């Protein structure tokens, strides 16, 4: 056997030894790392925020058929919770194999999850991250907050599961331990209940009455939290509600030939999110179909700040007459166009502080979130780009629950790239210009290098 062959043989044997040794070493050891791009096997950052609030032993008992894959998946998921917070312990109980435990917990259905914390008990309907985190959120919060949703102006319903409905928004409220109360200010006394953690108006179609405007503004000024989702396609003028917060609703229809989806210049893709507001935290792009425009007042009163959350490209404009033609003319407003704002108004009241003996001055803080499109949060569009995340962030900002929001990883799984005209132009430059240019350039360099070497050698 030649020396080379011997070397090859030794190398081969060593490779086998290494592979077998590696396998023997790995056998019985169970290490794991989540290398998926979206970390789909890890708990969502929002869940981690919720778990930070768990300061005492929290027991999770999942009642599952031990023989099924669900029990295995549940152990995997619950182990992640335990890893993040050692106060959390868990057990998976097969209620058929251990009916005594099922009776003790009063279980009557498979897949029931019982969580106990500081003497409180809640049940989760299934063993998935969203349900478990929501249940933990309920436990640490000690109860549910109430959010109020305005009706009476033709707003889409939270239980409407059609594409134009808002059932996905309803689910977000439910999963974040909010009780939803509908408020109709068009009947009876026009007063927004004071226990509303926030007031939402999702796309009013009909105009507001003066009493309603007064009631909403009075609520907002008294440290209220309001989200106003306006629409360009209705007769409801939201300006009486937006102007006290430094924002003017321009109406019209935003046209953005450079950043839009599906060849429809009114199906606007927003990539400019110029603020540092927590409402756009983790938001990459938004899709706002059929949006109107907003303008921020130049002279804001003391204590009032307005963040421009989202703006269209410089090639866009507000079309004042969309029924005629989508062509920029002198009546239109040139872009970039602001389509979402966040107003924060703080003022000092001379009395009312309850946290110190004897009272004293207190700071009253109002927050108002305004968007100029109502289509982006319908069932058809909520999961486009970062729309869902934008809403969830807005909800957290309004109710000041930044650390107490349970959402799933899917909220942050925005990995699509809409083929806007701007992006098409970049691809064209890259594929037709840059890449062939580099290849031709490299060829020419090689050619001249070869000729030079040949000349030298001759």
């Amino acid at each position, binding site marked *: 056997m030649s020396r080379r062959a011997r070397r090859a*043989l030794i190398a081969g044997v060593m490779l086998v030894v290494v592979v077998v040794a590696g396998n023997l070493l790995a056998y019985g050891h169970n290490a794991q790392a989540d290398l998926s791009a979206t970390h789909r096997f890890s708990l969502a950052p929002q869940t981690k925020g919720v778990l930070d609030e768990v300061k005492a032993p929290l027991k999770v008992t999942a009642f599952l058929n031990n*023989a099924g894959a669900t029990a295995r998946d549940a152990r995997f998921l619950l182990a992640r919770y335990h890893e993040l917070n050692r106060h959390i312990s868990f057990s998976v109980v097969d209620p058929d194999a251990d009916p005594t435990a099922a009776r003790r917990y009063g*279980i*009557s259905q498979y897949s029931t999850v019982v969580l106990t914390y500081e003497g409180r008990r809640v049940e989760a309907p299934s063993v998935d991250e969203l349900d478990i985190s929501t249940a933990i959120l309920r436990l640490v919060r000690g109860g549910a907050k109430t959010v109020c949703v305005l009706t009476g102006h033709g707003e889409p319903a939270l239980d409407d599961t059609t594409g134009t409905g808002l059932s996905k928004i309803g689910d977000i409220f439910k999963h974040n331990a909010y009780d939803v109360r509908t408020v109709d200010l068009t009947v009876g006394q026009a007063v927004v209940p004071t226990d509303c953690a926030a007031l939402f108006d999702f796309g009013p179609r009909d105009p507001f009455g003066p009493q309603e405007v007064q009631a909403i503004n009075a609520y907002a000024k008294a440290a209220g939290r309001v989200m106003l989702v306006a629409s360009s396609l209705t007769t409801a003028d939201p300006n009486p509600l937006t102007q006290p917060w430094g924002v003017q609703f321009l109406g019209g229809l935003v046209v953005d030939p450079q950043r839009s989806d599906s060849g429809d210049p009114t199906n606007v893709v927003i990539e400019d999110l110029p603020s540092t507001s927590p409402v756009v935290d983790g938001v990459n792009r938004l899709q706002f179909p059929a949006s109107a425009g907003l303008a921020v007042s130049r002279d804001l009163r003391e204590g009032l700040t307005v963040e421009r959350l989202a703006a269209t490209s410089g090639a866009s404009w507000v079309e004042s007459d969309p029924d005629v033609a989508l062509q920029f003319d002198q009546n239109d407003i040139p872009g970039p166009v602001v389509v979402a704002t966040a107003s924060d108004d703080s003022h000092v009241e001379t009395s009312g502080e309850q946290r110190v003996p004897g009272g004293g001055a207190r700071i009253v803080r109002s927050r108002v979130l305004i968007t100029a499109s109502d289509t982006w949060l319908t069932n058809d569009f909520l999961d486009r780009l970062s729309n869902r995340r934008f809403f969830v962030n807005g909800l957290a900002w309004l109710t000041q629950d930044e650390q107490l929001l349970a959402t799933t990883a899917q909220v942050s799984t925005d990995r699509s790239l809409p083929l806007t005209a701007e992006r098409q132009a970049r691809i064209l430059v890259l594929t037709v210009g840059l890449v062939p240019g580099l290849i031709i350039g490299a060829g020419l360099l090689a050619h001249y290098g070869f000729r030079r070497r040949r000349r030298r050698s001759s």
Partner: protein
Amino acid sequence: MRSASTLVAAALAVGLSVAACGGGSSGSSGSSTDVPEVVSGQPSTWTDVTVSTPTASTDVPASARKDLAPLLATRVFDHPEALSVYGLDHPQATLTYKGRTGATVAVDIGQPNFDRHFLYMQRRGSPVVYLVPADAFRPLLAMVGIDIAPPA
């Protein structure tokens, strides 16, 4: 040279096979998809089937035997907890099968499971506990005065 390369390739293949087998051994130990039988046979296999309690006993009519032979279980507990957990220490009823040769098979009927869709049963003389759908047994047990509440 050629023989050495062949040898290396063969060794590599053997090594990888060994490694693959080693890794595979940590997987499932194999499972059967067979439906477990508490009592085998057909309705015609058994000449008499009776259901009895300490105070009452009645023959199961032939028309009601199709769900009893074979008597199929949904789940099997090879290593059950104490029989009292399943109500099998004091069974509420017993199902007795009598064959043509005179041999008998007795099946004790315990309590319903947590969601009342199933009943715990045990073939007398066997340590194994079975979970059997309760639907077929409700009218049967009613014949000896036992009411099993329907699922919630």
